[in-house]
């Protein structure tokens, strides 16, 4: 019984927290949300809301939503995704209005930064989707990201061509996943163990090369230029977010669309999913299971590697040791939260990126919330998302199981 009501209970607790912590005992003062930037067509005025009042109203609305969810469960129905999404957005707004009481929150920067932080997560999760959908558990996303970050920096520095750096990142990611594939598919080693070992290996290797070999000439690739799409870039809020970005972010949107279409609408995708669900069935209709798995895993690695390039070419402009800092594991969480679906996984990655960026923006704005708490925020969000709301999700049936013929 309790299990069935898990989602409504989690929602209810969050709603009460917003209502009590932020509403009843919250701080006074106005919260200002700045929506426009200087380059926009027209200026949208700042949104000024009384902090406590807003939290109170939102808290009540959240409670109603939680009650609605409980009602649905009682009637034996599932809680729809849109309800969870609306709940999430409102809960975040409630938290924000409390956190910035008396200050001003630049929305554009907040969202822009979120997107940037989400880029490696999206690529990593997409790579994971391909790998797991074909039946190989990919714990090595972290290693693929890091390998991509490293090679893109080195190749771009040495050739002086940033785009060659991107290619190198994809190749490096593919190579890491190829090792995973060889051990997991050909030698039937436990996939989780190989993945973890690979992550450790890539950390060691790149750290060693970074300190022993790299110098300022081979680790100064520079950053990808921003490509501004005329007119569209001047829309308030959305313009700077979607149409004034680097190539790698445009590539990300394209990749999401292509992976989704390929997975569900093409012969290639049907066969890939069949191999991940029931390899024997695929084998008996003449599909080469091992080859399909190699293809899926390697392609996934290439995508994750591309995501790694964002750390260097997309943001910092140089490689530093262990710069992926566990984002590969968060990508894995996004993949599971997104139920092995490329679009949902992308949304999950964006959510995690938002949580992380919120922590740093609030720190800059000077919110009354202690910074240690803010640093914790993204991981709390991840935990609630994966454990509380994702519920019992079913991944590809054969993921993690090697296929032995006969």
């Amino acid at each position, binding site marked *: 019984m309790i299990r069935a009501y898990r989602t409504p209970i989690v929602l209810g607790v969050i709603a009460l927290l917003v209502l009590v912590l932020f509403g009843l005992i919250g701080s006074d003062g106005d919260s200002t949300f700045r929506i426009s930037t200087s380059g926009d067509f027209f200026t949208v005025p700042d949104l000024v809301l009384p902090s406590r009042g807003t939290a109170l109203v939102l808290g009540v609305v959240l409670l109603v939503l939680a009650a609605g969810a409980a009602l649905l469960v009682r009637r034996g129905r599932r809680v729809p995704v849109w309800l969870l999404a609306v709940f999430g957005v409102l809960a975040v707004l409630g938290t924000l209005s409390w956190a910035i009481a008396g200050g001003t929150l630049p929305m554009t920067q907040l969202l822009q930064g979120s997107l940037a932080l989400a880029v490696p997560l999206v690529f990593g999760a997409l790579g994971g989707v391909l790998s797991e959908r074909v039946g190989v558990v990919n714990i090595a996303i972290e290693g693929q990201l890091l390998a991509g970050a490293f090679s893109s920096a080195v190749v771009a520095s040495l050739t002086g061509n940033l785009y060659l750096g991107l290619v190198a990142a994809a190749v490096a990611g593919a190579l890491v996943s190829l090792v995973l594939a060889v051990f997991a598919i050909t030698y039937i080693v436990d996939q989780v163990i190989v993945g973890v070992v690979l992550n450790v290996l890539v950390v060691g290797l790149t750290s060693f090369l970074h300190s022993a070999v790299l110098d300022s000439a081979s680790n100064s690739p520079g950053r990808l230029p921003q490509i501004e799409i005329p007119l569209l870039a001047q829309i308030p809020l959305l313009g700077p977010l979607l149409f004034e970005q680097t190539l790698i972010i445009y590539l990300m949107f394209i990749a999401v669309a292509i992976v989704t279409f390929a997975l569900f*609408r*093409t012969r290639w995708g*049907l066969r890939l999913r069949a191999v991940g*669900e029931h390899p024997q*069935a695929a084998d008996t*209709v*003449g599909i080469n299971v091992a080859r399909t798995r190699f293809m899926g895993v390697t392609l996934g690695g290439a995508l994750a590697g591309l995501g790694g390039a964002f750390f260097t070419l997309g943001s910092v402009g140089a490689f530093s040791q262990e710069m992926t800092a566990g984002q590969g594991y968060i990508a894995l969480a996004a993949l599971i939260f997104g139920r092995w679906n490329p679009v949902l996984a992308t949304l999950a990655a964006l959510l995690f990126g938002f949580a992380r960026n919120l922590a740093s923006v609030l720190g800059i704005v000077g919110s009354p919330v202690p910074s240690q708490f803010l640093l914790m925020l993204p991981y709390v969000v991840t935990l609630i998302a994966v454990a509380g709301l994702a519920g019992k999700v079913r991944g590809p049936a054969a993921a993690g199981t090697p296929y032995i013929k*006969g």
Partner: protein
Amino acid sequence: MQLELRGITKRFGAFTANDAIDIVVEPGQIHALLGENGAGKSTLMNVLYGLYQAEEGSILLDGIEQRFSGPGDAMRAGIGMVHQHFMLVPVFTVAENVMLGHEPTKGAGVLDLETARQRVREISARFGFGLDPDARIEDLPVGVQQRVEIVKALSRDAKVLVFDEPTAVLTPQETDELIGIMRQLKEAGTSIVFISHKLREVRAIADVITVIRRGKVVGSAEPTASSQELAALMVGRAVELTVHKQPAAPGDVALSIRGLSARNAQGTVTLDDVDLDIRRGEILAVAGVQGNGQTELANAIIGLLGGLEGSISLEGRELIGRTVKQVLDAGVGFVPEDRSHDGIVKEFTIAENLILDRSDRDPFANGLSLKLGTVRSFAEEKSREYDVRSQGVDTKVGRLSGGNQQKVVLARELSRPLKLFIASQPTRGLDVGSIQFVHEQIVATRDAGVPVLIVSTELDEVVALADRIAVMYQGRIVDVVAPDTSRERLGSLMAGVVA
């Protein structure tokens, strides 16, 4: 299309699974391959389907020699297979499963789902299957899934169709329908290979019967041959097909189940208000198609199932809420349906497996350690008594044949003082000789005055053993009937029809 297998030999290491097998299947003929489990029928068919490569011999279609390096080649040559364990992706739709491997596209690899649906509807209509191309496989009953397998083969223009133990998962009605479908296919000129160990079905449908024993063709027979003749050919000696038992002398009610209900993790009802009484000295057999609550019923009694409502009382003592150990100690013997997972520990020796349930007490253990001498002599005694064929009691159980493994399980469970004996699928996968032995032991247990509960999906076994038959459908006991009830009536009950 004519199919000829000539001198097929397939070895696995030192073991010869197929030994120079010759078979000719004529066009429009139903050719039955009869043999016990492990006789080499499935190996032969996997060779034919390109899943295994034969060491010797050749496969000819219409007189032309074929080389199959994989199932893809075999399918292209016109061979289709309806597998015993369906080769269907549960989360895909019917149309997706049927088109997998030879998908129609609109160019550039984009799936043409409409054409695929049309193809399913067309073949389905030709045989009156009534398949919905957009239904998900996991939502369909087993009998319908099997039709999807048939459509899958036919959509590739299979001229030779292999049915590997197709009736194992079907109700009697579904079996009749399948036989009708096979006749229809035969009329349309398809050559059919029908693999089975069920004499009744083979005699009902085959044009020619080839019997295989220990990897060799040991003879062929006309469908007019008697069951006794076929069984003798299959086993290599005369066998007793009926179970000899005296009429039951039922005593008092020993096990009494009232209002037993359970749900699984998904919230689906698996046991629905079950009432059942079993008396001392009678065998009550639970019949039903796999997955209608029989497994849950046995597990509920033994204490493996949580969240139960109702009551299960054994000689007046409530069993619900007790641990498995407490239930066993209360005098319940249990032969689980999945022998190799739940009945034995494969990596343990025969001796260790025989005392799994009593490893903590007299006479096999004192406070700290096992009394290995006692364990050993007990094992030797039981091995003799139950005719466990092995190289000694230190042999790992995993290396024994299925029949000998089951004897170990029986020896362990029957060597305690019992107040109730439960056996789930007691003869699944066993050879005829072992089946006979197991049946004798079950009857002897009954005759010793113990109430016996048998769960079996083999209707023949249920009818042969039972003093009363309880038929389960969707978690309910539909009816409790006498063993001489007609098969038609039993079949309807198994399909949930109460007439």
